């Protein structure tokens, strides 16, 4: 199949690509729409990687500006989000490197913000299968613990985990964003997950203590 046709077909399937092609072609409304469509997702990823909301927002803005500046070079070879997060990845890694040279004080963790999926209530209040054991942490406290657990990961592990978890990206797309092989992503994620398990297993309840069986009725 000729390359042009492939890109057309891909563009037809993916509305994000279609939007980006309009941006490429200088449609002013399209860029506004693109920013609105991706701003929250981009900010979430950058915030989780950098751990600093203001810095993440500045960087998200920079990502969009780069998208705009490079729009004429855009060619729809992959999902648009992969391209967007590749730019974000490069900028985030640069920012982290710069930070190592000029350490900054990290700020918030429990700032107000909507929870990804969970109801707006203290975890301690729930008596359901999601309730936590003796710790009965408040969700803000839990967020601190999770944030700290993410911080135990190295940068690449953290980014891979965040793309996988919050962007629901598959290994192939993560590989593309991070410039790795799929196999490398697989072992990166495996190490990261093992480390998260190590850090967080005290905060979850597996039914029956060390028992190997889980009782669905009680879990």
């Amino acid at each position: 199949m000729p390359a042009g046709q492939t890109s057309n077909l891909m563009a037809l399937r993916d509305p994000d690509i279609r939007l980006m092609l309009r941006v490429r072609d200088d449609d002013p409304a399209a860029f506004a729409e693109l920013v609105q469509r991706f701003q929250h997702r981009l900010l979430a990823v950058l915030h989780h990687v950098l751990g600093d909301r203001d810095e993440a927002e500045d960087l998200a803005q920079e990502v969009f500006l780069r998208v705009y500046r490079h729009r004429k070079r855009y060619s729809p070879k992959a999902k648009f989000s992969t391209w967007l997060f590749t730019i974000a990845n490069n900028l985030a890694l640069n920012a982290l490197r710069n930070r190592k040279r000029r350490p900054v004080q990290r700020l918030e963790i429990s700032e107000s913000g909507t929870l990804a999926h969970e109801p707006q209530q203290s975890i301690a209040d729930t008596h359901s299968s999601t309730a936590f054991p003796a710790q009965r942490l408040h969700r803000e406290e839990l967020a601190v613990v999770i944030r700290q657990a993410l911080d135990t990961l190295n940068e690449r592990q953290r980014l891979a985990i965040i793309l996988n978890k919050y962007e629901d990206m598959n290994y192939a797309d993560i590989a593309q964003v991070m410039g790795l092989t799929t196999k490398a992503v697989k072992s990166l994620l495996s190490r990261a997950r093992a480390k998260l398990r190590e850090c967080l297993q005290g905060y979850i309840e597996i039914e029956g203590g060390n028992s190997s069986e889980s009782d669905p009725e009680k879990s």
Partner: protein
Amino acid sequence: MPEPPQPGRNSPDPPLPVDPLEEELVAYLDGELPEEEARLIEQRLANDPDLRRRALLLKKTYDLLDYLPQPVVSENFTTRTLEKIPAWRATATPANAPEAPAHPIVPSTSQPVLMTDTRSASSYFTIRLAPWKISIVLVLCLICGALSGYGLLSWTLSAPYPPPSASQELLLSDHRLIEMLPYYIGVDDLAFLLRLAEPELFGDEPLVENNPSRMGTSEAFELSPPFKFEELVREFQSLPASRQAALREFDRELFALENTEREYLLRILETYTLWLSRLSQDQQREILSAKNSAERLQRIRELREHQWVEALPPEHQKRLRSLSTQDRIETIRRLKRQESNRRETWSFIRRHAEEIAANRIPWPFHDEALRQAVVEFGRQAFQLDEPGKERLTANERQRYLSTLQAAEQTGGSAWFSYGREIYNLSRKYERFLLPPPQGKPVIEYADLGPSARLLEKDRAQSLTAPFRGRWPEFALAVLDYINTLPTHERPKLPPLGPSRLEELPQPLRHVIERELWPKLRPREREALAAWEGKWPEYCRELRKWAGFHDVSLPGIMLPGSPRRWDALYGTRVPEPSGLPASKFPPFAPLLNRK
């Protein structure tokens, strides 16, 4: 309280030794393993309690990440970002803002969209709507021509005309709205558009169904704007404030939808606009001047039906004319069903043309054990060997058995037909695919305890007696009847069927515990628990989550991966990018699938 994790961002890259099994396990949990390897892991999980525990811990710790707050961008983020772009500043500053309307605004011109200058409209559509620009421009002109002065568009005239300063201030998001304005011409709101998606209206149109380019060709993507849309801006500004607000709301709702949903609805919108553009002036006026959304839909429905009948072969038309009204309605319904079936069959064949031509045995029939399991499932699910209890109609039974026979005799791609047949039938009779209780099922009045006497007379009996002796038909009929009664008159009944995990038959329970439960997220377990004690809802919820997590529940779902069944044998497959929402009728069968 466990020790909080110690931050160690700069720890060396492989902080833990690589464990190949762990890698496989994580990839399995992420759905990234090829089928064969996934099966191996599943086998190991089934036999190794320690591994199961590791998997569960991995999953649960990962689920914890859901508790991390998701930040929201600050209020003026978009504007601040856009203002950094010189080109955007040029279009957004007051000096370059769209000019005020050149023509005086009078209330009588407040149609949805008025194109006063066809030349500029034409240039606009060259960019966005190249394949049918003429039609669209035509409809706009026609509508303007036909309706200006008539004052018929009561839906736009209902509100008092606003002071110009209030309605002429454009919001950032209005750019898109104005661009889409010609599409929004005959639409009241999102609910109206959703109704247009019904199969009898525009949901079954090939343009929507086959999902070609939205614009008919890919040309639209290759052309370079910059277009002028001042005329559209002017027209938008000339609308009453109430209509402007309604359009903004509609546009906001439409673009807040998931990509797949929105793209689907945009195709509906295009099909509708194209259809509208091809109507006569009188017909257009009839639709656009309807008093409200319901009346407009009714007029569209009548016109669609009329057009459909007119497009039938002459002999069908002749026959229809000779029928009574009721028979005519029935016949039209039947003919429509046939047409829809043919379209689906054709679409199915087209999707599998290559495999069919190569005479390949499709999944799951290439696997002897799975093939037998599927055939056995069909036998039990449709009660083929139980005279008097068959679920299929005579035609369905005949077609089912003949496709099965053909597949068994000729093999190869003949299994495609059988697969599609059993898939469709299992969908159609899904209501009856419910697990029996561990003890005696409710199949007789005597099983209903003291309430039985209330059900053994008059209307109750006529509605329930035909299903005596059959599970779950009898219990469902009883429930259906009870639900027609006012709440205070409903008799107290014993449990009609299993509605808790421990009440399910053992093989099914086993699969749920081993395969489904570990995949359920905490909130999904909660959602399921909320249905406990309710029959048949609990079982249906179980099936829903099983489908979502790609687990087949024995006896009530086709053996083998539900996702593969949908992908191979489903007739209407949404775009790969997302999960359609419940409000879109054509996707209804796929609602609960990821």
